[in-house]
Every structure is written in structure tokens, then in C-alpha cells.
């Protein structure tokens, strides 16, 4: 009985070939993708593809570890498929780690890219996504002085940006999560080519309804990161008002955010709050560090810096109704009743809602030296 069963299974299996089989050496592994807008308004895709032959131990010298492929088409998918015209093998996207979208294309809209990325099963939703000034292909062609494959180095760079906290890290699923929650704007990180061998990841690009509308300055990005509780590391630089002493604080722990509250008289306000624990990083004055009366001034200056950054972001968000902070969403979450009342006239009300700030800064260490000289 069982013998027959096995026989049947075996013949069934052998009668068909293995449909989904793909060999590693018959795939072109894409490490990074750049999207550009071509001159004739089509989508131009450039891929950074691993050159497996040049990566092995016994690879002959002279071969680059990666190569660049370019193709264009009417839609994103079309452009990607047309890459097979010139590629020796099928492209493989699961190990693609970064998507770079050029300014021009982002202004036209990235809905197609977003949809393809989430709909298709091969590319991953947690690919890092950035918007670049200039052409995406230039970014991919940059020969970084370190590392084998630039795309993976870019990813490392993006992930390391958390140390400085001057740019957000956004993936397709993050973006879609925000859109699904009716937050109209997403802040993408911005990548800029500064020289032939140098890239910079800093600042934010504002995408509204999947279209690039504006850029954020560093300060605004910082404020945004503060208000979204995305700063875990980084520096706060402040200058005291009267004595002009520059103080640099290294953040060890930070918890920040904002919440809508109704005051007693029914006024809707936002309460922004940050609890920061830090360590003295750099201090210029030799006298005042041991002077206890000078300390409140330093703390105040640091608080002011954080406040300024937050204010900048808030000003940007309320201006022109670019609600990338999710003010709308937060009211909906925490004050659903108020939100219902305000929903119709939200756009007019939003810029008028006051903010209160509460910044707590605690300095827990002065580092390896006690006193500056």
C-alpha cells in the first residue's frame, strides 16, 4: 500500500520539473536601486549588482566587485523588467538594501515604487529608502573609499546616522504605516553627493501624498526627531546667553514626544516633552565648571536649544499644512471626541494650537577630566 503511495508521489514529482528553482549563480543579486526620471518623462532605474566572480578568494584582479545596470520604462515594474534586456540573468531583489529616489522623480510621485515594493513578494519592506539631490545613478556610481559594495556601505551609513541624529531612517513599510494612519507627510532621509568619493546623509525630505514637496533643514529634522522620540544618541550644542560659553552634551538616554491635552477651559494644546540624560562632552570654560551657581544657566541653554529645534519643526509642520508630525493623528488617538468636533475645520485650527514645552535635562557625568584648563 505504502509502496504504491510513494510510487505515485514519486512519479507525480518527477513528471514535473521544479518550477521555482533558481540557482544563485544564475541570479544577479541587486544590492541597491536608484530611481530617476528620464528626459522623456519615463522612469529610469539603475541597479548596483554584485559581481560574484570578483568577490571570491580566487577572483582574478581587475574586476570590480559590482556593476551598474540601467534601464527605463513607463512604470516602475516595467523599467525593472526591461533591465533583463541587458542583464545576463534574472535580477534578484531580496538582498537589495537601499532605494534611492531622485528629486525629480520624487516630485512627480513615488506611489508606483511604494506599491510595487509592498505588493511584490521578493523585495523587502524594510529596505532603507532615501531621497537624493541630483541623480540617483550618480549616488550609486560613487566610488566610496571603503568597503566592497557601495550600496551596502550606504546602508551602513544610514544606520550609523542614528549616532548623530540628523536624519530619519525610513523604510517603505514605515512610510505606508504612516499613510495608513492618515498622517499626510513623511520625512525621508536625504542623501547628497558631495564629491567624487563622498556621500552625505543628512536632513529630511518632506513627502506629501507620495510627492516630494519640501526639504527640512537640519534643525527642523532634529526637531522632528525629538518630537517623534527617535533620538537615542547624539549631541546637543548650546551657548549660554550671557557668558557665551559653548557646551556640548552627549545624549545617553532620551525620551521625548508630544501629546494633545485639553486644558481646563477646553482649549486644545500640545504638550511636548523631553527627558534627556546626558554626559558632558565638551566644555570651554575653565572656571565655571566648578561653580554651582553657573549650572542652571547651562541647563537652561541646553533646554533652549532643544526647544528651538522643536519649534522649528512645529513651525514647518503647521505652515502650509504639512503635518509630518502627525498632530492630526495624535488628536485622533488620544482625544477622539475632540477630533470629531474639529475634523471639519482642522486645517484652519492646526496652526493656532499652542504648544507647551517641558524639557528635563540631567547631566550625570563630566567624563574623564574634572576640570577644563
Amino acid at each position: 500500500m505504502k509502496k504504491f503511495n510513494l510510487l505515485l508521489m514519486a512519479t507525480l514529482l518527477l513528471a514535473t520539473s521544479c518550477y521555482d528553482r533558481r540557482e544563485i549563480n544564475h541570479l544577479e543579486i541587486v544590492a541597491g536601486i536608484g530611481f530617476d526620471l528620464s528626459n522623456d518623462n519615463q522612469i529610469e532605474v539603475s541597479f548596483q549588482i554584485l559581481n560574484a566572480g570578483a568577490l571570491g578568494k580566487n577572483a582574478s584582479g581587475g574586476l570590480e566587485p559590482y556593476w551598474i545596470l540601467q534601464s527605463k520604462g513607463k512604470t516602475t515594474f516595467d523599467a525593472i523588467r526591461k533591465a533583463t534586456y541587458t542583464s545576463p540573468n534574472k535580477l534578484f531583489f531580496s538582498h537589495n538594501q537601499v532605494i534611492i529616489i531622485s528629486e525629480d522623480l520624487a516630485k512627480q510621485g513615488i506611489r508606483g515604487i511604494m506599491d510595487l515594493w509592498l505588493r511584490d513578494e521578493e523585495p523587502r519592506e524594510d529596505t532603507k529608502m532615501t531621497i537624493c539631490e541630483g541623480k540617483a545613478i550618480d549616488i550609486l556610481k560613487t566610488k566610496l573609499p571603503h568597503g566592497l559594495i557601495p550600496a551596502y556601505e550606504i546602508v551602513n551609513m544610514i544606520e550609523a546616522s542614528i549616532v548623530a541624529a540628523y536624519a530619519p531612517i525610513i523604510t517603505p513599510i514605515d512610510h505606508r504605516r504612516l499613510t495608513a494612519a492618515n498622517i499626510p507627510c513623511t520625512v525621508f532621509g536625504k542623501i547628497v553627493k558631495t564629491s567624487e568619493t563622498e556621500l552625505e546623509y543628512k536632513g529630511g525630505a518632506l513627502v506629501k501624498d507620495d510627492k516630494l514637496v519640501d526639504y527640512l533643514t537640519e534643525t527642523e529634522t532634529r526637531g522632528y526627531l525629538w518630537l517623534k522620540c527617535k533620538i537615542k544618541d547624539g549631541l546637543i550644542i548650546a551657548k549660554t546667553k550671557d557668558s557665551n560659553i559653548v557646551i556640548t552634551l552627549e545624549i545617553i538616554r532620551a525620551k521625548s514626544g508630544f501629546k494633545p491635552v485639553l486644558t481646563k477651559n477646553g482649549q486644545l494644546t500640545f504638550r511636548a516633552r523631553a527627558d534627556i540624560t546626558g554626559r558632558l562632552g565638551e566644555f570651554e570654560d575653565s572656571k565655571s565648571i566648578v561653580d554651582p551657581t553657573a549650572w542652571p544657566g547651562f541647563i537652561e541653554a541646553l533646554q533652549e536649544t532643544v526647544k528651538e529645534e522643536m519649534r522649528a519643526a512645529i513651525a514647518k509642520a503647521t505652515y502650509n499644512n504639512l503635518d509630518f508630525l502627525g498632530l492630526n493623528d495624535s488628536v485622533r488617538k488620544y482625544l477622539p471626541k475632540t477630533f470629531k468636533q474639529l475634523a471639519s475645520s482642522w486645517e484652519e485650527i492646526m496652526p493656532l494650537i499652542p504648544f507647551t514645552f517641558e524639557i528635563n535635562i540631567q547631566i550625570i557625568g563630566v567624563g574623564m577630566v574634572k576640570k577644563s584648563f
Partner: protein
Amino acid sequence: MEGKYPVSSRQVLALIAMFILGTSLLFSLGQELGRHSWLGIITGFIAFLFLFWLYYFLLKLEPGKSLFGLNEQAFGRGLGTVINLWYLIYFFVLLSVVVGNFVDFINSVILIQTPEILLTIFLTLTAAYAVKKGLESIARLSEIMVFCVFTTAIVVTLLLFDKIDTTNFWPLWPQNWALVLRSGFSILTFPFGETVIFLSIFYQLGGPQKVSKGFFWGSVVGVFVLLVIALRNIAVLGEFVKFSTYPAYDSVRLINIARFITRAEVVISLNYMFAGYVKATTVYYSLCLGLKEIFRLKTYQHLVLPIAALVILNAHLSFSTNVQNVFFAFEVYPFFAIIFQLILILATLIMLLIKKQLGRRRPTI
């Protein structure tokens, strides 16, 4: 292979839990509720407790008789057989849909180019193999598998800890309670109410006391895992759960611990496969058992393969995109299934009680 099985209460628990998790692990239950899907699950489970009480009552009323036997006893041979045939059709539809769903999932996520019919044949025949080996093997298998599924659900949730955003749950209470109830109804029929098929199996497993203990705790384990997964999906994906085809799969894709523990989703999908396998084999088994009982056969062994052929054809022809699946699960299936899960059971119960009452009175007259 037939007759009394040495199936322990823990194995019943495992069977029920795996059955409930079966295909519901794949889809997000109460997806239409978005971030309130957990409320839908709880509503469905509370409603199920009533059904459970009903089933328990039925089990206790006539221990040692299957659902089909009870129907015949309640409605007489003729009408009883007709109702039993309807039940078989329900089981058959359920089985086809379960197999179809899994093939669909594999075909749209893992093995894209493999023809659907091949996968259907493959999965159905493997299920048939287990059915031929009998309930004992399935129960033993599920006992191990329930550990796998349970621990995986917990471990995956822990691995996703850094991605969890608890603000996604706010506001906690929905505006539209009617939708919650409606969704609870569809969750009641899928997956909880589907445990009605166990009424056709349980009679061989020993007393109703022992069985119903496993039954109850099994459903508790099942609903616990479902809730954990639903809450995790909401916390990780936020409002996006509404738009994702396979939210659990999507959220697991985001696991990334030090760039080393990553890409765990295929392993998770294997887990779903295991649960689905147990569900499919259980339904399959009770279908065979029902046919055997209706036609008064000695063994069901010979029915397994012809049924497999029918299942393959039906599963292959059933709907093939998720839109259709969701429409079926939300708009159609509850109204079809409730007949078998509640109405007919209730009717049988009432008829049996009346007959019992009459039978008790007759001698005195």
C-alpha cells in the same frame, strides 16, 4: 486502526488548539476592524463559549454517539441521513477551502511559479497519508506541533519587541460597535465554530468529561495565541494591518536583530503550514468518518483517496485571490456555516430532548 483510541486529554487540547489556529494564523482575523481586531476576536470567543456549552451538552446527552448518529436518532433514519449529507457537504466545502487557502498562500508568497494544481495535489496527498494513518497519529503530531506554534508565536513577538509601538492601539475603543459585533460573528464561525466537526470524532475518545476539558482548554490556548498574534500585528504594523494580505507574515518580515536574526518569515510560514496541516487532516478525517457512518461501512480506508481526488479538483477551482477569500470569509461563509454550527445543532438538541421526555413519559401512560 479504528475503534477506541488511547488519546489523552492533552492531545485533545492540542488538536483543538491547532485546529483553531489552522488557517486563522494566515489571515488576520477581524481585519476589517483594523486596530480593533483583538476586540473582534474576544467577541467571537465569548460567543463561542455559548456554542461550547451547547456542544458539551450534546456530548453529555448521548456519550458514545457521533454527530451523525445523533442526527439520525433525532430526526429518524430518512431525514437524519439527509441532514448528515448536508453536514458532509459542509465538511467538504470547508476542507476544499482550507486546502485552497494554503495553496493560495504558498503560491502567492513562497513558490510563485509552481503551478497551483501541483501544490494542491501535493498537499492533499500528504493530508491523505495522515488520514490513512488514523486519528492517533494526527493527535500525536499535533501534540508536538502545538508546542512549536505556541513557542514560535511567543518568540517571534519577543524578537519584534523593538518594533512595537503601543500608541498604535489608541484610541482603545471603537466608534463603530456594530462592526465589532458583525466581525465577532464572522470570527465565531471561523475559526471557533468550526470545532463542530469534532462532535463527529470525540465520541471515540472517551468520556465527555475528559474530552470537554481538552476541548475547552484547547480553545483557550487557541484564542490566546490568536490574540498574541493579533496584538503583535497591530503594535508592529499599526493601521497597515487593514491593507496587508498576510499581516502576520508581513510583521515577521520586519524582524532584524543585529542583521543576523532576520528573514525569519519563511520559517514562520512553515509553522502556519503545520497548523493548517492538522486542520486539513482533521476535517478530512471526520469527512471520511461521516461517510463511513452514513453508509454503514466497516472502514473508511478506501474512501480516502477518491475523496482526495474530489478535494483536489474543488480546491483547485475555488476562488484564488485574497479579495475573493475575504469576501467569502466575511460575507458568505458565516451565514452558510452558522446553519451547521448552531441552528442544526440546536434543532438536534431540542429534538433529542423532546424524544427523551416522551420516552420517559410513555411508560407511565
